[in-house]
């Protein structure tokens, strides 16, 4: 057997789950879809002393859209959100189909992917782009953690060891807004070498009311493209301005080098993808989102 021995808890209620985490002395891991955790355990990169399997918890499998927010419960599989998005959100549909492969998405959860915090993964960047929030439940009650403050380092988040993420909330792009998504990977379904996702909303006079850009695979956490957001705010989004802002946003990144790509390559691709996603977002303004 590949994983190291562990104690297995399959709680029937949220309170039991939180208490199973709290009593494990910081060495417990939550098991939802297991598509990141089980490989790490198989390679013994992770050796939790206790697994808290939340798959039997009631009420965590809902996808709820209300007052401009999309709330996704901790047991919603990526495939379920993909199916939901097929008729309701081309942005979410496009992002979801880039996450691994159908057999992975059938088990992997949206919240699990967000909380695992792989900097090259799509959903953490989407959460950052859409001003998302992680809903965390711990022994001290429930708290909301904004995406901006959630990611600290690769696979390291603001979630405490005794906290369970029960849901994530995305702010849906407002009516009239446009979106763009692009990534470069070696094969479809691989982690991105670099990727970007953008949303833009225009004011009545055609100037940019709000622009939001997030990169993935371009540093230790998903990264906002602040330089581009600020360059565009309140101005007409000309091609020249977008290109200039994209270069500035990419220059502010500190991507890692690995066997797949150098840091310089990642920064250059990030600039190109920022420009492309913004151009796509501008072209889609007023369309489905």
């Amino acid at each position, binding site marked *: 057997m590949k994983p190291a021995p562990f*104690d*297995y808890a399959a709680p029937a209620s949220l309170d039991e789950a939180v208490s199973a985490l709290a009593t494990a002395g910081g060495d417990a891991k939550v098991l939802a879809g*297991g598509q990141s955790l*089980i490989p790490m355990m*198989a390679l013994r990169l992770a050796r939790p002393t206790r697994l808290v399997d939340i798959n039997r918890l009631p009420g965590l499998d809902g996808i709820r859209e209300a007052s401009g927010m999309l709330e996704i419960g901790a047991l919603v599989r990526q*495939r379920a959100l993909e199916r939901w998005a097929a008729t309701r959100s081309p942005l979410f549909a496009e992002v979801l189909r880039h996450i691994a*492969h*159908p057999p*992975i998405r059938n088990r992997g959860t949206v919240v699990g992917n967000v909380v695992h915090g792989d900097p090259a993964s799509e959903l953490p960047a989407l959460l950052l782009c859409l001003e998302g929030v992680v809903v965390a439940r711990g022994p001290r009650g429930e708290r909301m953690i904004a995406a901006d403050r959630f990611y600290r380092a690769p696979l390291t988040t603001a979630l405490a060891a005794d906290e369970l993420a029960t849901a994530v909330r995305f702010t849906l792009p407002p009516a009239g807004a446009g979106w763009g998504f692009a990534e470069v990977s070696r094969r479809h*379904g691989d982690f991105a070498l670099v990727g970007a996702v953008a949303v833009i909303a225009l004011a009545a006079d055609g100037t940019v009311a709000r622009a939001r850009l997030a990169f993935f695979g371009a540093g230790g956490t998903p990264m906002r493209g602040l330089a581009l957001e600020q360059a565009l705010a309140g101005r007409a989004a000309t091609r020249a301005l977008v290109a200039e802002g994209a270069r500035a946003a990419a220059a502010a990144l500190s991507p890692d080098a690995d066997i797949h790509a150098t840091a310089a390559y990642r920064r250059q691709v990030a600039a190109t993808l920022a420009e492309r996603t913004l151009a796509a977002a501008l072209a889609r303004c007023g369309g489905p989102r």
Partner: protein
Amino acid sequence: MTRTIRVTVNGQEHERAAEVRQTLADFLREDLELTGTHLGCEHGVCGACTVLLDGEPIRACLMLAVQADGRSVTTIEGVAPADGLHPVQEAFWAKHGLQCGYCTPGIIMSTCAFLREQPAPSREEIREMLAGHLCRCTGYHFIVEAIEAAAKALAPPTARPTHQKE
């Protein structure tokens, strides 16, 4: 640490004690002796261990056996009718969609679920689906052709597309 689980595999119910750290793939192969489910990478990349869980393809190496309690699993052994091959298997045979055959059970399981959702896929869609399966004989061209042939064989006569998109 073990737990007793009840799982239906290929229509047959089993009640067994499973070590909590045993993967579903090892449970199928070692406890139920269903060795058609192959193990390649054992961390979710290669796709050889793909089985159907309540009809949906999943990686059997990335699920604990205890998580299959109360669920229904279909493996490659449960695909064919008693008297022959499933149309997807038939198409792989006819189109030489396998060489060494190690990756084949996983690909067949994914293909069965894929064609149920996308009965007339384009070549690009087939290739996107196959990105989740590694064939180290690199026989992908014939695998794509086999899946196209399987789609045609499975399509009801009225729903058959007049031409396949490239």
